[in-house]
């Protein structure tokens, strides 16, 4: 497996993560990520056949509690943290592109 990550791959992963890098940033991040991924490669030398993966140290499973409704009236407080609001709603740019907007 190729251990080095190239700029094309970094761009692809950035797209998946909803991030954007300009050319200068790509030139900086690519070797940094490459050297860390090289370090990740060291794990391959350890045989893990038959070893179960561990995703959490917790010993709790399926913790249940009563489904109790509680009153919550925090709409205004919540909206205070929203970047843009209108009429008690969170405002975002148009979701449809221009063409579909014409059809509205």
């Amino acid at each position, binding site marked *: 497996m190729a251990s080095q990550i190239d700029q094309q791959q970094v761009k692809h992963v950035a797209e998946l993560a909803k991030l954007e890098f300009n050319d200068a940033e790509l030139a900086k991040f690519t070797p940094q990520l490459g050297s*860390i991924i090289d370090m990740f490669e060291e794990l391959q030398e350890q045989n893990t056949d038959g070893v179960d993966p*561990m995703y*959490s140290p917790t010993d709790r499973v399926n913790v249940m509690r009563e489904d109790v409704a509680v009153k919550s009236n925090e709409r205004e407080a919540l909206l205070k943290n929203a*970047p843009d609001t209108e009429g008690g709603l969170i405002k975002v740019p148009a979701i449809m592109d221009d063409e579909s907007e014409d059809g509205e």
Partner: protein
Amino acid sequence: MKFNDTDLTQLHADLQAKKVSAKELTKAAFDRIKETDDDVKAFITLNEDEALKRAEAIDNEGIATDKLLAGVPLAVKDNIVTKGLKTTAASKMLENFTPIYNATVIEKLNDQDFINVGKTNLDEFAMGGSTENSAFFTTHNPWDLTRVPGGSSGGSAAAVAAGDVIGALGTDTGGSIRMPSSYNNVVGLKPTYGRVSRWGAIAFGSSFDQIGWITNSVKNNALLTQIISGQDDHDMTSSDRQVPNWAASLNENTNVKGLKIAVPKEYLDEGIQPGVRTVINKALKHFEELGAIIDTDVSMPHTKYGVPAYYILASSEASSNLQRYDGIRYGFRAPDAKTLEEVYVKSRTQGFGDEVKRRIMLGTFSLSAGFYDAYFNKAAKIRTLIAQDFANVLKDHDLIMGPTGANPAFEIGSEIADPKTMYMNDILTVPVNMAGLPAMSLPAGFDNGLPVGLHIIGKAFDEQTIYNAGYVFEQTTDFHKQTPKLGGQD
């Protein structure tokens, strides 16, 4: 007034006897902060008006016998949400974020009438080991202002070391309580995974994160940790095990006679700076003289895989946890975003700092199609092997000891350009989080005037044995009594 060497039980008694008032204590904390924080920069947000008002109210109500923390000023890491008080995670993304609820640990402290003096600096979203990744400023080490305080709970450790408060909350995902404690000559304990509710700790790596305290003494740490521990309906991983009164057994009868301490050879190998090794060997010798049995014929062969496996798993969890920052409901939204897609991409690109982006990238990569088995799942299997290393050693030993860090605090700016070197600093702390065990960093001595921490690792939910050993060491040494020369005091 100096109270930063105070024992909490004594402080509580003095408050009850009206030898000191909550307002005097709180004023003293802010006086000290004003004296030191221009240099140290431990705090992002100070809560002065509210804290003084609260202290006055508590003085008027009287100090309740069952509220150990009534009127006691403490600090909170700024990735733990506080209702009505700005909580930034040291990120531009949350620069103007004011939570509408309290973390469970804050609710528990409020029940005790504690005084929140303010929110401490950290590496952005707790990602880093120096506070240099804070979007706002770097905290300086009170022992040497040209050096880092460690991270990510660097502000909390520096605030305690500077004598601002006797305790500050931190979070520890891969060493973020213990490493700064080591660099600042203070006591930091990461409790067992599940001991403390994570509700309200801004999520980074959810299977690693744990809230704990950085304090001026072992006993204060035990008292404070007991208060924040316990099962919580808001966090299904929080344990319903009984929370012991750890401090009750810290007294003149506490001893380490016959205690079996393992020192794995990997923990003192050539990667550890000679000055650190000297301090730790002396500390181990001290335990031996106190009657403990030191076993150096121990190996934890998978230690070297801890850093790569941790950075795959924790970054993967981070890439998922940080998806919520999309510029829509709260947090930063890029002013130049014209479409919904641009709101996501530009807000995240402009709102996150470089280290957070690196972790998101590493995590997204490790989880992506074609790489999942080779990276994420491989690392999860290595995690099992690391947990087994601990289980094997702790089967016939009470504790594991070694240095917290391979080196003392480094110069500000010296490692920031080299993320991999920065990650390797965590080699001794991350395995503990992978296994979910409790561990403490304890003042153990100095290397060229810089503090060195002893790392004490225990069995799951056996914080008591760690506290016992730490307490005995502290009572028979005076490293913890040494404080940095700062702000005209020593």
